[in-house]
C-alpha cells in the first residue's frame, strides 16, 4: 500500500493554483487534471462510483456498515494564489532542531527564529520546499490523508462506517462550497481535513463581510486646484485612518476581529 508520504509527494507535482480572476469552475485547468488522476486512483482502489462532476468536484463512496452513520471527509484540490505552486520541488529532511537550508543556490533558509513552532518538530521528518514555491500541503496533505485512510478501509476486515469522499476545487478563492452537492453527498455529517498543526480541531470561525469603497474625487491642474480639487487617494487614506488602529490582523488574536485592507487602486 502506498504511504501517505509518497502519495503526498506525488500530488504536489500537480500545479493546481486557483485564480480569482477566472469565471470558470474549476478556475484553472490544472485542478481538473489533478481531479482526473484522483478519480483514476480511487477506481483502482475499488471505489467504483468515483467520478468528477461537470464542475470538477470529485465524489466517491467506501461502503460500510449501513447501521452506522455515514461520514464525509472533504478536502480541496487547489492551492493558494498567494504563492506559486508550479514545479514544486519537495524534499523530505530529518529535522534535528537546527535551521534548514531550503535552497543552497539562493541561500534560502527555514529558520526557527522566523517560525518558532518549527522547534516542536525536532526528531520528525519534514517535507519542505526549495524556498521558491509553496508546498501545497494546504490541502494536498488532506487529500493524501483521506485517500490513504480510504485505501486502508477498502482492505480492512474491521467493521466501519460508510465513508463519503468529496474533493472540491477553488476553496482558496472562496468558491469551494458553491457547487458542492450536499444532497447527493448524503453524509450524516462530515469533516474538512484542511487544518494546520497536529491536534487542530475547529468548529468556530469568523463572521465576515467584504467592503468595497468607491471614492469619486475631482481632478484639476494642481496649480488651479484651490477650493476645487478633491484628491480621491487622500480620501481613501482618510477613510482607512478612521478605522481603529488596534483592530488590524497584526494586532488581534483569538476571538478579536479585524478590518483588513487588501487592495487599493486608482482608476
Amino acid at each position: 500500500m502506498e504511504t501517505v508520504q509518497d502519495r503526498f509527494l506525488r500530488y504536489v507535482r500537480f500545479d493546481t493554483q486557483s485564480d480569482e480572476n477566472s469565471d470558470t469552475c474549476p478556475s484553472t485547468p490544472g485542478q481538473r487534471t489533478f481531479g482526473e488522476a484522483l478519480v483514476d486512483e480511487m477506481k483502482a482502489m475499488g471505489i467504483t462510483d468515483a467520478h468528477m462532476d461537470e464542475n470538477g468536484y470529485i465524489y466517491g463512496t467506501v461502503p460500510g456498515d449501513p447501521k452506522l452513520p455515514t461520514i464525509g471527509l472533504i478536502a480541496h484540490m487547489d492551492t493558494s494564489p498567494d504563492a506559486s505552486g508550479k514545479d514544486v520541488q519537495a524534499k523530505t529532511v530529518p529535522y534535528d532542531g537546527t535551521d534548514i537550508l531550503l535552497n543552497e543556490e539562493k541561500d534560502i533558509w527555514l529558520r526557527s527564529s522566523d517560525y518558532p513552532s518549527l522547534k516542536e518538530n525536532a526528531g520528525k521528518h519534514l517535507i519542505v520546499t526549495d524556498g521558491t514555491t509553496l508546498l501545497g500541503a494546504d490541502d494536498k496533505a488532506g487529500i493524501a490523508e483521506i485517500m490513504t485512510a480510504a485505501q486502508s478501509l477498502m482492505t480492512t476486515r474491521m467493521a466501519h462506517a460508510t465513508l463519503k469522499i468529496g474533493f472540491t476545487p477553488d476553496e482558496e478563492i472562496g468558491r469551494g462550497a458553491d457547487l458542492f452537492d450536499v444532497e447527493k453527498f448524503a453524509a450524516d455529517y462530515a469533516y474538512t481535513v484542511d487544518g494546520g498543526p497536529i491536534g487542530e480541531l475547529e468548529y468556530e470561525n469568523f463572521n465576515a463581510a467584504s467592503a468595497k469603497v468607491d471614492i469619486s474625487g475631482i481632478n484639476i491642474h494642481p496649480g488651479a486646484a484651490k477650493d476645487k480639487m478633491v484628491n480621491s487617494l487622500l480620501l481613501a487614506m482618510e477613510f482607512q485612518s478612521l478605522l481603529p488602529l488596534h483592530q488590524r490582523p497584526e494586532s488581534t488574536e483569538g476571538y478579536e476581529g479585524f478590518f483588513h485592507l487588501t487592495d487599493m487602486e486608482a482608476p
Partner: protein
Amino acid sequence: MEKFLQKKALMEKICAFLNEKYGPGTVELTLKDSYFNMREKILPHIHIVEKAKAAMEALGIAPRISPIRGGTDGARLSFMGLPCPNLFTGGQNFHSRFEYIPVEDMEKCTQLLIHLLTTC
C-alpha cells in the same frame, strides 16, 4: 455577531461622515456578507466534535480547539445542511514558500481518520 454588526456600522458611519465633509456621493460603500460562524450549526451536533476530540486523545494527540480566524468551506457547508468541523492536516506556514509538513503528523492524521470511521 454583535461585534461583527458594530464593525459594519462603523464603516457606514465613516462613509456618512466623509460625505458630510466633502459632499454627498463622494464616498460610496458596498458591504457584502461573505460567511458566518458555523458554531450555531455545529452545536446541535456537538457530538461530532466530541468524537473527534476523543479519537485524538485515544491516539495520543493533544487536541487544540480554537476558532478559525477567517472562513472555511466547512462553515459554508454547515449552513448548507452538512455539519462540518475542520481537522488538522499537520501542515504549517500555509500559503507561503516556507510551508512544511512533518511526515509523522500526516501519518497521525491518517490514523485519526481511520479511527473516526471504525469506532462509531
